[in-house]
């Protein structure tokens, strides 16, 4: 890849999937308007979902999915050893995601219920950071391709990394969306980290907090607001638990 005739360095990137829906990986092939430029800017070493190329000489490992089986722990550790930078991509990788909801149930019973006499190996769901050191977290269900692109821009041109300290409400207001609270619905926007551009309220659904907490969220005020608007503690808790990002306040 040349810009103004000068060869740029291309970060060598590998994508690895663990337990999830692979929606995060799919995002990498989306945003088609910049897909060519994105692929030009990087060297794809491993990306099983779309490429048969395999290699070990990568610098950056993008991990999607949570950890739910002993062999995944080993595989993840091996990747950590090879990668200079390890990025947790999406809510499953960052917090355990919806996959973590299973931890609230008895796994032996769950196994019997789904697989009868042929139980499958499974352990309580862990986030990637519970197993290895994570250098960068990009929460979201799915991950925002925009943020992945900005990581690449950081690697290539040293542009600043994406950081959103403020909550979803800010981006929601910028879109002139009618507040879901005013429609009588619960919304985690006031305490959730922005960066998604608030698609849920705009699409007619209160925020479910997939990106986890914003910086220094004002929980007290939020709980008071939810109560004042008539939402039960159970309702608020159910939602905070959904994507695994709010474990600290549960």
């Amino acid at each position: 890849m040349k810009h103004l005739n000068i060869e740029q360095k291309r970060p060598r990137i590998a994508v690895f999937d663990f337990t999830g829906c692979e929606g995060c990986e799919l995002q990498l092939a989306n945003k088609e308007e910049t897909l060519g430029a994105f692929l030009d800017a990087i060297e794809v070493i491993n990306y099983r979902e779309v490429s048969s190329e395999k290699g070990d000489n990568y610098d950056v490992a993008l991990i999607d999915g949570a950890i739910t089986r002993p062999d995944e722990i080993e595989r993840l550790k091996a990747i950590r050893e090879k990668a200079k930078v390890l990025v947790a991509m999406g809510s499953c990788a960052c917090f355990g995601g919806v996959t973590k909801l299973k931890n609230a149930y008895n796994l032996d019973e769950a196994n019997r219920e789904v697989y009868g006499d042929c139980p499958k190996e499974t352990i309580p769901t862990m986030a990637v950071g519970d197993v290895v050191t994570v250098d960068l977290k990009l929460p979201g269900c799915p991950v925002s391709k925009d943020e992945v692109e900005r990581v690449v821009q950081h690697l290539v041109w040293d542009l600043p990394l994406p950081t959103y300290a403020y909550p979803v409400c800010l981006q929601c207001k910028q879109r002139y969306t009618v507040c879901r609270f005013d429609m009588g619905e619960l919304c985690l926007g006031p305490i959730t980290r922005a960066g998604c551009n608030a698609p849920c309220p705009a699409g007619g659904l209160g925020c479910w907090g997939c990106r986890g907490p914003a910086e220094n969220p004002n929980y007290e005020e939020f709980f008071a607001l939810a109560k004042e608007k008539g939402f039960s503690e159970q309702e608020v808790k159910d939602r905070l638990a959904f994507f695994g990002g709010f474990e600290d306040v549960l």
Partner: protein
Amino acid sequence: MTTSGKNTKKINLNVDVHHLTRVEGHGNIRVRVVDGKVTEARWDIVETPRFFEVMLKGKHYTAAGILTARICGICSIGHCLASVRASEAAFGVTIPEAAAKLRLLAKHGETMQSHFLHLFFLAAPDFLGLTSAIPLKDLNPEVFGIAARLKKLANDICDLVAGRTTHPVSLQVGGVAKMPDRHALLEIRDRLERSVPDLTATVELFKTLEIPEFVRETEFVALKGENDYPFIGGRLVSTDGVERDESEYLAMTNEYVDKNNTSKWAKLSRESLAVGALARLNNNYDFLNDQAKAVAVELGLAPVCHAPLMNNVAQLVECVHVVYDSIRLIDELVDSGNAETMAPVKPKAGRGVGAVEVPRGILYHDYEYGDDGRVVRANCVIPTTQNNANIHYDMHALAEQFACEGMTDERLELLCSMLVRAYDPCISCSVH
């Protein structure tokens, strides 16, 4: 393909694929041929189970669709639709007509998105001798551009109607949360019309691809069209003549657990069955629009077709169908003005089933609710689960057909991989 047919020469072949690439999720292929005899031919799913049915227990009906969308990133709209349909059946809710049209439009967006992703990025590289579609960007920028434009159009339809491409937000129990902006709809309509040259070019490209000849008689299961090519709800049908109501889906899937697989297997009148684009087309060919039928004829696809690799072609035919059908839907939606898109929902105890044709085949969600609107019991039967046994038996037959002189391990590996990829398996989904 010249290697088909029997040969007396004894040949030994060995294929071992660990985590097949360019498919969604993790699966292994293992084929052994000793002295010209196939001693082993396996397709095994090694994906980690996630226990969605268990996680659904106790969840409020407003959370069920949001949760089950996460079964699969590629067909999240389909899962969400099957989920809300099951809940609506349990509560006795009838959604407004405009909502049904919006849902179908979102479904069309997903069908296009998934099929184009599969055709260009997952399947085509095998035919072009590439390891991925990434080099196409430089080798054939024109084709890469077509793929990117078509896929973007598909994603933009989903964004507009469902609020997001992956993991929709507007598809809710009772209908669809909002009617998209009229101008935005018309802009999509315009882009759909302008996508026709890209579609034509795609058909031309697929005409030049040589599809390995492999036929194995199969029972195909799909929704049964009554007036239209079916995507959301309705009766169930098979090419062996079985017909059932949507709520009797268990009689169509007959799931059982194989000890080597995290995914369950399914059967109906034979030892296995197939679902997907080819199954839909085999059961509902007459309901395709004229443009799609013309492409089917052009590409040599006629029902009932028993060649699994022709599923690629069936997907392309469906893409043509949904592009024109989306234009029709947008015209009707624009005419309906500001029609109501949500029906009131009052949860009550009961059971409901939702069947939806997702890109890889028919999908069932089945929920039982308590009076509080929380799930008591849930069951989801995924397309790839229904296909896995069939892939497995196909693999054996394919190995037998091609285990003859001149065959190499590499070539057989490619053929087996192409067979599996033709089903466009969604393994994460099937293990949910």
